[in-house]
């Protein structure tokens, strides 16, 4: 049988870029890691229930914290000193490609007016999907949340929110900039100011107790290396 590479559990939104990175890593003569994409919440729970995985890439810090502090294994579920920020992202206000709406994002900006009489604002579900949490935080700080709180359509994932806008079902939406830029059927109206919400970061960490430790560590270092970051940058992620 083929040697099996390290198992990487990653947030679904990393699918394209991480696959590219894994290909690049394999092209250097390493065993290609096994990538499993799902919601960060599902992956984190799998880890703390003893699933045999080597790396975890979360879509937000909270689920990485959850794994870091979960009981059940002496010494913790994460390998000490391996947690790092892999990439960062921005929030974008989007509209269907044909939309004429223009808006500048600043405190008190007239977001609700852009929704028309009965339009909905498509978000990842606030309180559940990370992108939605950031969006709610930003709109709250900009003092426009109360005016749109009742108009939100909370999608199951940021991709689903994107689809609602792309299909024209919602006149406006807030998604990650990385998602917005690859969907031709939507137009970015504006990016949210970086200071309007907590930094959007995707942390990576090695998991304790799995077999493929050395290989996993090699892949982790590769992801964080200049070459690795260049791949993510190619997909629009920030890589400070």
């Amino acid at each position, binding site marked *: 049988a083929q040697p099996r590479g390290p198992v990487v559990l990653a947030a679904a939104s990393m699918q394209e870029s991480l696959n590219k990175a894994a290909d690049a890593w394999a092209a250097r003569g390493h065993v290609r890691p096994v990538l499993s994409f799902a*919601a960060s919440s599902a992956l984190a729970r799998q880890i703390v229930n003893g699933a045999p995985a080597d790396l975890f890439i979360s879509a937000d810090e909270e689920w990485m914290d959850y794994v870091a502090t979960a009981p059940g294994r002496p010494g913790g579920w994460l390998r000490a000193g391996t947690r790092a920020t892999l990439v960062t992202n921005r929030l974008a206000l989007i509209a269907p490609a044909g939309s004429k709406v223009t808006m500048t994002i600043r405190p008190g900006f007239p977001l609700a007016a852009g929704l028309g009489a009965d339009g909905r604002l498509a978000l990842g*579900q606030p*309180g*559940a999907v990370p992108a939605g949490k950031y969006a709610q935080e930003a709109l709250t700080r900009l003092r426009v949340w109360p005016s749109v709180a009742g108009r939100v*359509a909370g999608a*199951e994932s940021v991709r689903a929110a994107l*689809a609602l806008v792309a*299909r024209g*079902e919602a006149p406006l939406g807030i998604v990650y900039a990385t998602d917005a830029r690859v969907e031709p059927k939507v137009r970015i109206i504006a990016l949210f100011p970086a200071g309007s919400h907590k930094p959007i970061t995707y942390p990576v960490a090695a998991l304790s107790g799995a077999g493929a430790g050395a290989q996993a560590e090699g892949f982790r270092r590769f992801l964080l290396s200049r070459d690795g970051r260049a791949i993510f940058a190619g997909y629009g992620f920030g890589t400070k």
Partner: protein
Amino acid sequence: MMLDADGWAIVALSLKVSAVAVLGVAPLAFGVAWVLARGRFAGRVVLDALVHLPLVLPPVVVGWLLLLAFGAQGAVGRWLAGMGITVMFRWTGAALASAVMAFPLMVRAMRLSIEAVDIRLEDAARTLGAHRWRVFATITLPLAMPGVLAGLVLGFARSLGEFGATITFVSNIPGETQTLPLAIYAAMQLPGGEAAVTRLAMVAVALSLIALAASEALARRMGGKGGL
């Protein structure tokens, strides 16, 4: 079971969505079941496969297809909009998604019972002067009642648990489309949300227990073993 006012509102919405979905689609399900049980036509297997579609496809795909068809830009959606009906982001859309997902289960159960109805009894009713529709209403339907009940129960349970198609189709809008499973999903997405998940899941279990007990009682009232 301690639920706050929001919690009870979610329960009420879930019951409304499931009840409307199941009762609304039941006649169609019975009709399709009847055609599949009795019809001998080309394309029967294709109809059968179509009926099973919502079962075979992942729910999010079903939700996505509903979005394509019933969205403001979709063919059916535009037609409905012309009549002043919108389902997007409405509880009616959630009911539609639930109905579609429950449909194959209801059809199968009903079909099984229709196939078990003794056609000789229908013949007897005809010799007594009953027209096709009366035979159907007074003989076929009552004798197929166990399957109808089972279909309603299965469909109701499936609706109570429906998540993927609903959230993809009509999103998660508190008070409008946020049914119990969507609330549970939201809680699942939060670190430390397990307690809320457990509480809401227990409510779902309690609802289904009540529905089951009611259906069993109904079946018994219809005369042991549900009328058979």
